[in-house]
């Protein structure tokens, strides 16, 4: 059996008297896209930040790519790509300057031009970050996570606040990255996003994992009263996108 890309056992974390994570076990396999779902305050961000080595757990074990934060911090930083939920990159730098800065921290990785092309910001390379739209900023944040050619990518709510076109473009980028055999852990509170991107999901609430499986497994576990057969296969979002087109509105 191949070792896990990410192995979490018995993770606990409290802030003052609030228990954020109350005993979490996770097992993310190499090459899969794993989703961490749950309402606000469920402990998703705390869990992912402990895995990223940015928050120290009170108890429990975290193993990434077979390494731990205490033994191989430098090696792990080189091999991980991280996008945080609330980061605002410097408004005064241009897109290309921002990517150059982040690229300089990593020993190896793609060229700045390749990353720019990958996230489709080539035309915006000389624009100040402060002038970018929400979708462009999110793609720039993804670019900064990809500059080190990571084996394991952490994305914390990558599409929150984006319009449907920008979300779908980001989905395409994440799917393409996964297609190269890389591992992804992402948090979201959009169920359609999890269904679209994730091979397996864990649903968290009150600091615990309360359900785990593929999206189809989870959906088949819930006994719903029989519904009248749906007249339409399309969702309302499909209607919106087919009417307004898939092209991005921010450029």
């Amino acid at each position, binding site marked *: 059996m191949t070792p896990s890309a990410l192995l979490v056992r018995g993770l606990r974390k409290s802030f003052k008297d609030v228990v954020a994570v109350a005993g979490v076990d996770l097992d993310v396999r190499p090459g899969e896209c794993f989703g961490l779902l749950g309402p606000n305050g469920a402990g998703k961000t705390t869990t992912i930040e402990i895995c990223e080595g940015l928050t120290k757990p009170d108890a429990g074990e975290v193993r990434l790519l077979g390494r731990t934060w205490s033994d191989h911090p430098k090696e792990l*930083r080189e091999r991980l790509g991280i996008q945080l939920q609330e980061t605002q*990159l*410097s408004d005064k730098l241009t897109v290309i*300057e921002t990517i*150059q800065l982040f690229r*300089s*921290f990593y020993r190896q990785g793609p060229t700045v031009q390749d990353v720019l092309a990958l996230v489709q910001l080539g035309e915006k390379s000389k624009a100040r970050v402060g002038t970018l739209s929400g979708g462009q900023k999110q793609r720039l944040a993804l670019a*900064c996570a990809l500059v080190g050619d990571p084996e394991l990518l952490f994305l914390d709510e990558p599409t929150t606040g984006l319009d449907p076109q920008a979300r779908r473009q980001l989905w395409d980028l994440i799917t393409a990255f996964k297609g190269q055999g890389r591992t992804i852990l992402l948090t979201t509170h959009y169920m359609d996003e999890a269904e679209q991107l994730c091979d397996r999901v864990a649903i968290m609430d009150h600091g615990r994992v309360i359900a785990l499986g593929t999206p189809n497994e989870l959906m088949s576990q819930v006994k719903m009263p029989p519904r009248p057969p749906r007249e339409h296969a399309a969702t309302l979002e499909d209607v919106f996108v087919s009417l307004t087109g898939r092209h991005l509105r921010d450029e």
Partner: protein
Amino acid sequence: MSSHPLVQLTLTRIREFAREPEAVFWAVFFPILLAAGLGIAFAGKPQTVLKIAAASTQIAQALKTEPGLDVAEMSVDEARLALRNGKVALVAEPGDGGAVVYRYDDTNPEGRTARMLADAAVQRQAGRTDPVAASDSIARDPGSRYIDFLIPGLVGIGIMSNAVWGLGFSIVDTRRRKLTKRLMATPMSRVHYLMSYLAWRMIVLVVEVAIPVGFGAIAFGVPIRGGLVDILALSVLGSLTFSAIGLLVASRAQTIEMVSGLTNLVVLPMWIFSGVFFSAQRFPDLVQPLIRLLPLTAFIDAMRGVQLQGNSLFHYGQELATLTVWLVVCFGLALKIFRWR
């Protein structure tokens, strides 16, 4: 372009600074405006002509023979009002039996000077002859005027303000944006991060020193008697010390409001006590030892000695030691308590 992280981080510092017009104004134009304003107010004006009032025509005519006095004739009431309002330094009134009464504030140096000039003029006109012949030879050397005193002080205050404000604002803004935390999620070295701030200060330092010193030399002939190497070495030490203080001020703060308050708390006492605009010797003897411990006092004292008197930097061992202790203590403490997220 080099892809070394320290180069890229330093470039980031420079870009963020250069693209903030307000910051450039405070660093470059403010010292020029301040030096020009104060220099024009104090440097060019001969302080020799004093305004006084005479309350009788006879006294006024006697006083007008003295070129150092600007005499206005007015009634006794008008003259006393002018004295109270500070429009004249002295009032000469007729007393009993042809005597003259001088009315002035003896705590005002101008009043005391006017008293001597006025009395000498009155006595001369009444026929007094001096037993010893005397004549004047005026010495107005560059190096001892107010503008000469001021320029090294402005260099010091520029380095201090820019370092403490600049570092504090930039570090806290990066932290507030959660960008510090994002950088910590990369392999970036913490030492490179902090060094990029020092490197940026060193580059801006050239401007911070060259502008006031150069402006003073060109506009007012303020001398540069010390070696440029001494001036540069002292400036580098001063800038590192104030950067370390800025680093400490910004080490925990999470909001711009908090770092502004802390910066004012640190910077304002030195604006007042360190002898920028007037000599620190004017404060009571009791607080002199404390004033001498302030880093800005040490910097300005050494800078005045090197620039104006042409002394070697080695004369200022105590000042250099004061700066170094502040540098080491603040930098060490900042490293220990710095909030990296």
